């Protein structure tokens, strides 16, 4: 489904702040794969996700989605294959619009024809059906503004918006990081439910090793813009969180990580 060949990206090239974010990524994700990505801060997880989504164009390499080259396609054009859920619950929805309008916006993805026919009763009824699946009693509030909802509710709507058109690829960028534990669990359950229901190809960036091991059929570990480990479902069943931590410890030995960085890792993962 997604093929990435030798992908390179540098930010702020030629300045003091130069960051070599992706150093030749090669990966092939099959149809129906649910891939989780873990790694330290600045390891390039989100950059990889953004490269697939088309937020920026890569310096080198190529990206194929479903056999089509999208390397140089702009973001809104790729949107017909890809849908995304962001880390910030506020950036996935339009606060000044109602729930129904947001869902309508999402369901026009990839099939935009002008002039756009607006909302009607029939479509509102379909959206109500979809909202029932969230089990958050939002089906009666289709006319409320998104701005009046809580973060968890907004993130659930964003997720629903992402899957409403059965996208080829679903990108999840630490989408539970900004939520309280209860809402986070709710969102994770919904994510699992939707991916299984539609057999979606999904890529999820996460900070939680537990999540990384429990979810999906494949886990990728990244460090300094490179993929250092690619674990299959069988591997994942075998491994524990401690094993993963040890993997990072090996890197520490290799690269002589400072104690500060180790502290950083511990803070983040344990």
């Amino acid at each position, binding site marked *: 489904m997604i093929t990435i060949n030798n992908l390179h990206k540098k930010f702020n090239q030629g300045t003091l702040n130069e960051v070599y974010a992706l150093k030749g990524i090669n990966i092939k994700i099959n149809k129906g794969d649910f891939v989780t990505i873990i790694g330290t801060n600045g390891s390039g997880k989100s950059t990889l996700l953004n490269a697939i*989504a088309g937020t920026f164009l890569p310096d080198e390499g190529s990206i194929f989605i479903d056999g089509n080259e999208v390397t140089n396609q702009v973001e*809104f*054009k790729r*949107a017909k294959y890809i849908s*995304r859920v962001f880390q910030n619950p506020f*950036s996935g929805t339009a606060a000044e619009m109602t729930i129904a309008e947001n869902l309508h*916006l999402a369901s026009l993805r990839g099939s935009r024809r002008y002039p756009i026919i607006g909302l009607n009763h029939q479509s509102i009824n379909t959206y109500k059906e979809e909202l029932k699946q969230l089990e958050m009693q939002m089906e009666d509030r289709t006319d409320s503004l998104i701005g009046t909802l809580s973060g968890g509710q907004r993130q659930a709507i964003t997720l629903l918006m992402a899957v409403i058109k059965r996208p080829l690829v679903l990108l999840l960028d630490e989408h539970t990081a900004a939520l309280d534990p209860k809402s986070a669990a709710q969102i994770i359950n919904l994510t699992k439910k939707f991916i299984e229901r539609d057999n979606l190809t999904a890529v999820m960036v996460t900070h939680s090793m537990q999540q990384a091991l429990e979810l999906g059929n494949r886990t990728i570990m990244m460090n300094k813009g490179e993929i250092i480990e690619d674990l299959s479902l069988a591997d994942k069943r075998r491994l524990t969180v401690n094993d993963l931590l040890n993997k990072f410890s090996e890197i520490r030995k290799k690269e002589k990580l400072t104690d500060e960085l180790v502290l950083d890792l511990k803070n983040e993962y344990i």
Partner: protein
Amino acid sequence: MASASGVNVELFKIFAVAVANGLVGLSGGLIAQYQGFADIGMGIGTVVIGLASVIIGESVLKSRNIAVKILSAIVGAVVFRLMIACALFIGFNPNDLKLLTALFVLFTLFITKYLNDNKKSSTSESKSGRQVRKYAPVLIGVVLIGVVGAFVYSTFFSKPAKTFKIGVLQVADNGLLNITRESFLVEIKKLGYTEENCELLVENANGELPNVNAILDKFLMNKVDVIVAISTPVTQAAIKKVTKIPVVFATVANPFILKAGESDSVHLPNVTGVYGWVPMEKVLEYTRQIIPGKLKLGVMWDPAQANSVFNVEQLKKAVTNYNDIEFEGVHIASSNEVYQAAQSLVAKGINMFLLPPDNIVYSAFESIVKAADTRNLPIIMCDIERLESGSVFTYGYDYTISGIQAANMVNRILNGENIANIPFERYKRVSMGVNLKAAEKCGVIVPDDIINSATLIVNKDGSIIDKTPKLKSKIRTALFLFNDSKSALEVSKGVNDFFKEKNVLKKKNMTLDVFNAQNEFHLANSVAQKIVSNNYDYIITLSTPSLQVMANNNKKIPHVFGFVSDPYRMGIAKDSMNHIENITGVQTLQPVESSIKTIREILPKAKTIGIVWNPAEACSEACTEIARKACELYGFKLVEVNVTNTSEVQEAVNSLISKKIDVFLTSGDNTVVMAVPMIAKMLKEHKIPFVTNAFSDVEVGAFLSVGADYYEVGRETAKYALKVINGSRTKDLKIYKFVPEKMYLNLKLAEEYGIKIDQKIINKAAKVLR
């Protein structure tokens, strides 16, 4: 987020901006059509108004519906304009309007914020919101108390208690009714009812009969002492409604058909007044004297008007006394039928039109003139106001006397006389008009004794002799400035000084009200409308924009302009004689020619003159054209460089310097004028003399300036205005070119450049810098 959902964000931004700009362009176009002209500076300040309108609109109408949002912008704009109109109506100085609009916008915002906070549940209320809520009632209370206080003060304390109240009501804004009202108001003042001891409620029903009753109710509520009813419909309503308060009517043809009385001395106990119908037999008698021989009269009237029928009956009766006069009548029902009716009469072979008083026929008088013109038929009628429009002879009443007689009756009533004992009075003065110009055209010879007894004569050359005793009322003149620029203030000072010196204000009993549009076109328009609706007697405008705005709003009031460089380009006039009838004035062009002449005198060897100018400026274009001609005349070569804004001037001047010009000239170009100090510095380095047309430019480094003396321009404009106030018609006064030159020489620079200047030229200069 939108981009991630497959929306082309850039495209939509461009689309939105394009739609917005399209709407802006559309409204600009509408404004230009409405005002009748456009100017590059018109948009300044409009953005703020637009923003205020949107803010007000959105606070008034809250909805997410796109149609309602558009409507809210329109509503906001209307509310905002209404507010300005109200402020002007109340009598605010346009200078205070800015403060007022700012306060209004602030107030609207504050109220909405307050209402919003009230609506929101208390849980989501912010700290600042709570503070606003806490103080809001106090602030609103203060504002309300202030408003109420001001109102109470103005109604109860500022004016001393009145001893008399007189209600004056007319049915519509119609020539003779206005004359009656004005003469009444002047006379009642003369009789000692001044502002201190008498309150006058002067009302106009604007042609709507329901208004008449409403206004009469208002009079009754206000407990007026006397009601003055001007015109038949008002009298009719007043007789029915008012039984206890005295009613004095004026300008009523026949009070007996209204059942106001049976004879002059036997009448309703609370009603008296002045009346009179035009004696049609007398009119016919004069007609006989003016046009002898066999006659076929063309007559038209509206059978629905009792007065008209009465007059026509009289005329028919009179016609039977003459064997050789025939009566040819036609009915009309509205003013747009008049032209056709007149044509049908002409086709029936009438010799002349004789028009008894009829409001509808008289209101469409111009179309009768048009029909009569085809066969040069004379028109005889009863309204002296229309003599100039093409009637040969008019015979009727002088309605000023109606007002004067009514005022005297009111005086008697207020002095305690029993109204039942005051008999009706007939008008005591007739008006008779002869138009010799129209007579000549129709081949009619008016006998000398008629000309001698006429009160108003239009001579063959169009001049007018007015023998009616004039009322001396207050003359109101509006002085309209566009901005506070230095030269504008100089002109304005000239106007004021002239009027003061000649003691015009006292002699003519004139007031001079100054209006200033603060350099904003939308304000200028409001001010102009206010001047027109307040019926000023004369208008003086200083500057081109105020002339433009005024000319578009005012088609009647005599208007004298000054401080205008080219009135011909704006459609005010075709040539100095051929201009809009009510507008004339003084034209002042920069003395370009004379500055070029002076250059020749000072520098006999100079060959080329460089000039930088902006082709978008009409005034600049005019000046450059003159410069071209003058250069040819005095043997110079003119090198021109065009600019479109001030930032390009430096480069333009540099290019001219490299072309080795001998002299640099700027005239009336606003784009270049902004850069004069910089140009002076650049030219000084190359020792090129810098000549300008603004007097004070020498002080910032010019070599020579020949400018117009704007103070003198102001005095000349005032002089011209005085001519109009003294009775000359603007139509007959040609647009007058007046350029008082003033020269300023920079001898310091002359020494530096090594130029020797003849003492004669130095003597000519009004000022010299050494």
